[in-house]
């Protein structure tokens, strides 16, 4: 039965470069798994949900944990830990709410090893990081022996634990376009305990302020744990564009978000409870992001 077991036997491969990792993955196609921080993978292996014959450890691939500025934005290596995101001056400067989101994941021990690449590639419904990245228009870079391609993060999630990456592809980088002027993001999540808990539901919002008219310019809202995959709620977004940031507008957006979401019932939480929270958290995330963007516009701090 489902008790946690000792780890099954496997070969351990330790590539030093992305190319080596891609070759290893191609060679052991089908029976190899990439190992980033292992915080999801080890549990899945102990539960025997997956039993790969080979584990390809990415820790030795230094180029994968770089956070850098590039033309048109920044790029975050897939092996970047949440601890590193939390304390990155570059990310703080460009998208400070990502630092806060990272700081709210697990415990310091988990953040020291868990990576952003693992959080996205695992494609578990309870992952926190996809939604905030989606609101920023993130692009993921995938590499394999066949070459490289880029994909909008929005098109990356296919289903429970399923992504658009082929079995021989490695997620190498997440690219974030430059932040428009007078914009801000927020991620608000709920769990029973005040920290170190599985997210019951979470909402990310990114608001760009229309300085000239004093209205919400652009807005993107994405939900975590509110369906099988992270989800943009486009009706709610559309309803807000060009509106004033009023309680009424927020309530309306919350209702629309609830309607677009497909939360499931599980022993962890009832569907009705998740739905109720989506409405509330959507309002809170929008209020936080919207206020921040508005204040930035009023102060003229792009």
């Amino acid at each position, binding site marked *: 039965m489902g008790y946690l077991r000792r780890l099954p036997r496997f070969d351990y491969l330790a590539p030093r470069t992305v190319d080596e990792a891609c070759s290893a993955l191609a060679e052991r196609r089908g029976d190899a798994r990439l190992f980033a921080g292992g915080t999801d993978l080890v549990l899945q292996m102990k539960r025997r949900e997956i039993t790969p014959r080979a584990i390809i450890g990415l820790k030795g691939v230094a180029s994968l944990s770089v956070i850098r500025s590039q033309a048109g934005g920044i790029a975050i290596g897939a092996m970047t830990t949440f601890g590193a995101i939390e304390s990155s001056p570059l990310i703080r400067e460009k998208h400070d709410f990502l630092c806060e989101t990272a700081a709210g994941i697990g415990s310091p021990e988990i953040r020291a090893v868990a990576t952003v690449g693992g959080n996205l590639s695992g494609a578990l419904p309870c992952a926190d990081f996809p939604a905030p990245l989606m609101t920023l228009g993130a692009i993921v870079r995938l590499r394999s022996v066949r070459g490289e391609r880029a994909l909008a993060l929005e098109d990356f999630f296919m289903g429970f634990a399923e992504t658009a990456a082929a079995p021989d592809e490695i997620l190498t980088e997440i690219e974030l376009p430059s932040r428009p002027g007078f914009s801000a993001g927020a991620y608000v999540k709920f769990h029973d305990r005040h920290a170190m*808990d599985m997210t019951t539901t979470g909402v990310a919002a990114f608001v760009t302020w229309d300085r000239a008219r004093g209205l919400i310019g652009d807005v993107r809202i994405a939900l975590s744990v509110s369906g099988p995959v992270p989800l943009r709620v486009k009706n709610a977004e559309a309803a807000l564009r060009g509106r004033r940031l009023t309680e009424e507008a927020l309530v309306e957006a919350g209702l629309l978000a609830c309607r677009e979401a497909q939360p499931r019932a599980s022993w962890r939480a009832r569907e009705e*409870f998740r739905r109720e929270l989506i409405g509330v958290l959507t309002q809170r995330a929008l209020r936080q992001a919207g206020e921040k963007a508005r204040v930035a516009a009023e102060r003229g701090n792009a």
Partner: protein
Amino acid sequence: MTVQACGDYAIIGKPAPKKDAWIKVTGEAKYADDLFLAGMLHGKLLRSPHPHAKISHIDTSRAEKLAGVRAVITGKDFPGIKYGNMPQTRDYLPLALDKVRYIGDEVAAVAAIDEEVAEEALDLIRVEYEPLPAVFDAEEAMKPGAPQLHDHAANNMSAETAFQFGDVAKGFAESDYLQEDLFETQPVKQGMLEPHACIGQWDETGKITLWASKQSPYVVWKQLSMGLGIETSRIRVIQTYVGGGFSGGKQEAMPMDFCAVVLSKKCGRPVKFVHNMDEVLTIGHMRHPMKIWLRTGVKKDGTLLAQHLKIVADGGAYSSIGQLSMYLPGAMLNLPYRVPNVKYEAYRIFTNNGFCGALRGHTIPQVCFARDSQLDLIAEKLGLDPIDIRLKNGLRPGETTPNGFRIGTFGFAECVEKAMEASGWKEKRGKLPRYRGIGMGCGSLVSGARVMGHSASTAQVNVHEDGTVALVTGSTDVGQGADTVLSMIAAEVLGVGLEDIRFSLVDTDITPADPGTFSSRVTFWTGNAVKIAAEDARRQLAEIAAEKLKAQIDDDIVFRDRQVYVKSDPQRRLRFDELVRLAQHRQGKVIMGKGAYTSGEALIDFRTGYGNMSPAYTPSACVVEVEVDPQTGQVTVAGVWGAHDCGFPLNPMLVKGQVLGATVMGIGQALYENLLRVDGKVMNPSFRDYKMPLTEDMPRLANVGHVNVITNDPSGPFGAKEAGEGAAAGVIAAVANAVYNATGVRFRSLPFSPDKILFALKESDRKAPAR
């Protein structure tokens, strides 16, 4: 009641860190899993995947053939003797014989060269089950036609208690107001961080040794003897450091212990077992979930006249100490309030869930939750202050309760007042903003219970020539600080330093017999035994000192600061170690003190429920302040303040640690913890999903307060009473009352989860939108 420290102590009453703190934080302390014996094998248990099934056949042949496997055993490798705590509750078998009764029931065991092989072997054991209909709800299980778990227990009745003191009908008839409520509590686990672990060895001579993490090693010793059908003289249990007990199985012999020794017999090698945390959280021993119906009759002024309490408890698949579990709620309804007429009925029902037993406070926190929630309901109905109704009904020293508890020291009123003061109750109650609230809950506990069987404690004090002392008791330190407090008692009496006392772990071949660590008995009972033993040793030394110092023994030889001197002429003195050497080397004396303590009370008669269970009772009061997020239903505990009458705090640092620990457990049960089961399967067997509160869930330290109420109990060692469990008793009701105060919604079912609160708030807004 006087509030002053008794005597001028050198050691007692001063904060001292735990003696074993250093070796524990450095990782030096050897827990059972840290022990390795030469040639040791590793064991694993095969557990039932069915909640209820007949075992028609077990085939172990494939597992036995796996390379690295040394032996496989099933229930047939044991004599088939049921063991347990009390004669009427013996229903455990080391491994199931013909039937499994819950998901997790032990069916077979393997010993192999490592854990991997042992696990692999479990997959190769073929068990043919015939699934039986199962029942997971206690009330369903009581109905005629429900699946029956045990042949001996008709209607799945595991334990039944009924008693009445006074005349409840008359009490209700004379009441101005009757309040009736139904409360419900959830299954909660101990949450100890160290899983169960043991090493068993059956040597060539037939001697059985078990090294194990046990809080009551002598109970294990007796139960091993019982279940194996082997005399105790051939069994030796050696206690290892215990990483938390809370009666989560470490007070008994468990299947792993039996399997370790029997596998060792088969293999000729020691065998180690360590549970995984998911096994710990799945198998037995948890707090009883209960339906609690309580009816209370009061006069207009709030005077309690009568209470009728009915409990249906889901006992799970086995008895544990069910009889006691069912006696306690009714008995403890007599404390801390004066209720002249009490009627009690309780049913512990077998179901196909993991089984229940004791957990810090046993079954007392559940009734305190119900009773102290209801007191607030009554106070509100009658327009009384919740504090006044408590003070009005609080028992006073010298009273005897209807069920025969003789109340000695009992600083209940002071507890209530101190908790109020510390929390700023008067400034806050009724003046906090909406969704912020403050509430009080009270409780009471025993200082050790004198129940059936063994309840006395004994101690030996061996004084060594270097002036140090080996203190030998049968009690265990489970993290609560027994090693330190018992050592402090010996050090105080002998006038030596705390660091001069060595406290030994229990070894049934060497240490004196003792029932173990439970029901907050160790400081009181073993502490008294230690004090008597130390005084005995001191008397022996005083005689020699008097001769040497040419003093009358009656002159009062003083032992202090490692010196021994004549009170009337302190210049006449000797060093303590010199005196010991004089006694041992010159006079050939063995300085060994002996002490025993038993409270001298008659046993409780479970049939009538009458009798004085404990030599001393402790009241406590707790105030909790909460903030409720009306949009998510999440409760944030903004502050907790408690006052507790521990008689006299022998070591205030440890008392504070105990009280706060108990309080946190109470908050955990109130807001977070819940062992979720779907058709008997535990859904959350990990500390990620079984949610105990974490530091982030606790108030800032500035909003945490603890006050000792000092009553100097004349029968406790240096005035001390219980401090380990009582403080938890009132916490849950305090949270319930605070949430009510914050929201105007009363919650009667635990835990107060965000979902429950959010939807109840919506419902109440619908009913009364303009609150």
